[in-house]
């Protein structure tokens, strides 16, 4: 029952900080292993299209995921494998989407990181950066209109995504409506190849919070304990009706933009700097230090993650690909309104 151990449902409700830290680490590790497996499959030519990893961002992402709960809305971004798992997305959803299985939530129609299950509160991202924030706003408005007072909506963005008009319009909208939005910005120093200095000119992206009239926190994105504190307090504040919460984390993408990219533009200096630390290593040290884990236990955990991922991949590899002849080529729910011509 490896799978069960790792799934959200089976995890103990976070009664204490201690439990949560370990639980969060588990999701970080699982995400790292899952990401690595996807990268391996990519290198083996088993994946069509790109593979995008959250390597180096797991502490931040998992901390968000564990801070949310059922009934919340989550619109993860490219590097949120950890947050997705922590929020309850099954490993299978990831693998099935990457491999295009017809049994996955996107049934082969969309791929890689563009997966979600709206009915479970996971909104599937479109590629256009910044575009999901206002969608989360609308979902939160609907929940409020339905009398649900304590649901939170969270979504993630990069340093580059902060330059989009969509981000600006949506954060301002959330502030005007005083919605319980948690916007997590992973400043990983680069947007694809573009360094921060070509992306913005403010001292810190956190400086933007005030211009929207929203609360803001900075956090060291390589530090699990710091991330957990920041994200939990942000989610609590949003849930308590304190309006949108902006969290800006500093960290480094420890991989290419996608697996096709060797990221040779990332300077050695920045790799060696504080943001370049691997959050998994940092978290392991924290767990050992605080006697929350032993080395053998950590090794066991990793083995457990590997087994879970391997099992999921083995399962999906036996699943059918979509059949174009069985496919419903239908972009509207109302079949009688489909526009048909002779050719089709």
């Amino acid at each position, binding site marked *: 029952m490896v799978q069960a151990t790792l799934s959200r449902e089976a995890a103990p409700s976070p009664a204490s900080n201690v439990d949560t830290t370990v639980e969060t680490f588990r999701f970080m590790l699982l995400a790292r292993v899952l990401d690595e497996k996807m990268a391996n499959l990519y290198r083996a030519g088993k994946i069509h299209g790109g593979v995008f990893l959250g390597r180096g961002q797991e502490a931040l992402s998992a901390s968000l995921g564990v801070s949310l709960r059922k009934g919340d809305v989550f619109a993860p971004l490219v590097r949120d494998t950890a947050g997705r798992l922590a929020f309850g997305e099954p490993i299978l959803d990831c693998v099935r989407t990457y491999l295009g299985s017809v049994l996955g*939530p*996107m049934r082969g*129609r*969309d791929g890689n990181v*563009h997966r*979600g*299950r*709206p*009915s479970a509160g996971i*909104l*599937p991202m*479109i*590629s*256009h950066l910044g*575009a*999901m*924030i*206002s*969608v*989360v*706003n*609308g*979902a*939160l*408005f*609907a*929940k409020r*209109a*339905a009398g649900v007072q304590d649901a939170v909506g969270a979504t993630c963005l990069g340093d580059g995504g902060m330059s989009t*008009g*969509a981000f600006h*319009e*949506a954060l*301002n*909208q959330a502030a*005007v409506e005083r919605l319980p939005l948690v916007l997590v910005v992973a400043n990983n120093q680069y947007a694809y190849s573009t360094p921060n200095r070509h992306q913005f000119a403010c001292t810190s992206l956190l400086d933007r919070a005030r211009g929207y009239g929203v609360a803001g926190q900075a956090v060291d994105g390589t530090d699990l304990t710091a991330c957990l504190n920041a994200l939990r307090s942000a989610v609590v504040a949003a849930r308590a009706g304190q309006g949108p919460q902006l969290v800006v984390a500093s960290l480094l993408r420890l991989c290419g933009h996608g697996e096709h990219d060797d990221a040779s533009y990332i300077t050695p200096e920045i790799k060696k700097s504080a943001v370049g630390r691997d959050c998994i290593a940092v978290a392991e040290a924290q767990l050992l230090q605080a006697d929350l884990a032993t080395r053998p236990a950590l090794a066991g955990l990793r083995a457990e993650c590997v087994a879970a991922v391997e099992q999921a991949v083995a399962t999906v590899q036996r699943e059918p690909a979509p059949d174009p002849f069985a496919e419903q080529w*239908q*972009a*509207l*729910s*109302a079949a*009688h*309104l*489909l*526009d*048909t*011509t*002779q*050719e089709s």
Partner: protein
Amino acid sequence: MSITYLEAIREAQARALAEDPRVFIYGEDVGQFGGAFKATKNLAAEFPGRVKDAPISEDAIVGFAVGAAIEGMRPIVEMQFADFSTVAINQIVNQAGTLFWRTQTPCPIVVRMPCGGTSGSGPFHSQNMEAIYSHYPGLVVVTPATVEDAYSMLIEAVALNDPVIFCEHKLLYYHLKAEKLPTEALPIGKARIAREGRDMTIVTYSAMIHEALAAADELEPEGWRVEVVDLRSVKPLDTDTVMASVARTGRLLCVGESWPWGGVTAEVIARVTSEGFALLDAPPQRLNSKDTPVPYHPSLWAAHRPTGHSIAAAARRVLRQ
């Protein structure tokens, strides 16, 4: 009592709000002010909290509507002018238009777009964008030409589970009147014979229906009986009704108020010629606006778009062939 096209739009929204608690309206100045054209007049007072003023953020307005729709609501978005939907187009085509196909989650939003030229409005307050939205998959695009359709199609649009681009024509807002609101209506997806004839068919939609009818009037004393087909919705496009009309008349002119390249008129002609080539006794023709931005000055504006006279002239050319 008589009711205008604009009032019909207001009444349809009032009814939707009254009958379905999931409906709300969102857009710039739609609240207390009642909208730039007064299409939501008094609705904020009648339905507190359900007619919401938005910041000037069209992208976020549509994104918000999609999010609310995912959670089961039925938002009606008002663009202040259709022209401003260019800054919302990404959310419309890539978010709303793909949601059902990607996730099987329906996206019941209506985006109301005040369309079309009026004299003195110029390049950025006159556009017709139905062709843009029809080209993308996943959207229903309707273009009511009558008071009755403005009302019934808006009611139906709100009830549909798919995103609807509701192109309402500003030129019809105040002048077009009906005796009363309809109690029954053709469904979205069905075209209508606006005037029967036997000599040729003019296919058009929205405000151009009235120009086409004027052209038909103009041609009547010359002995021509012109049939006018009102498409009502341009996507889906009711090819059957168009084809049946062309089968009767053998001649086709398609008229649109938007630009000549592509668009509804090209689509109609492509369908009729590929699916009903043998029905035609003469080459099909089209008439659109000129291929420039919509001009400001009344004399230029009147020459930029098809009118009763220019349609009649084009029709004569079709009839003579």
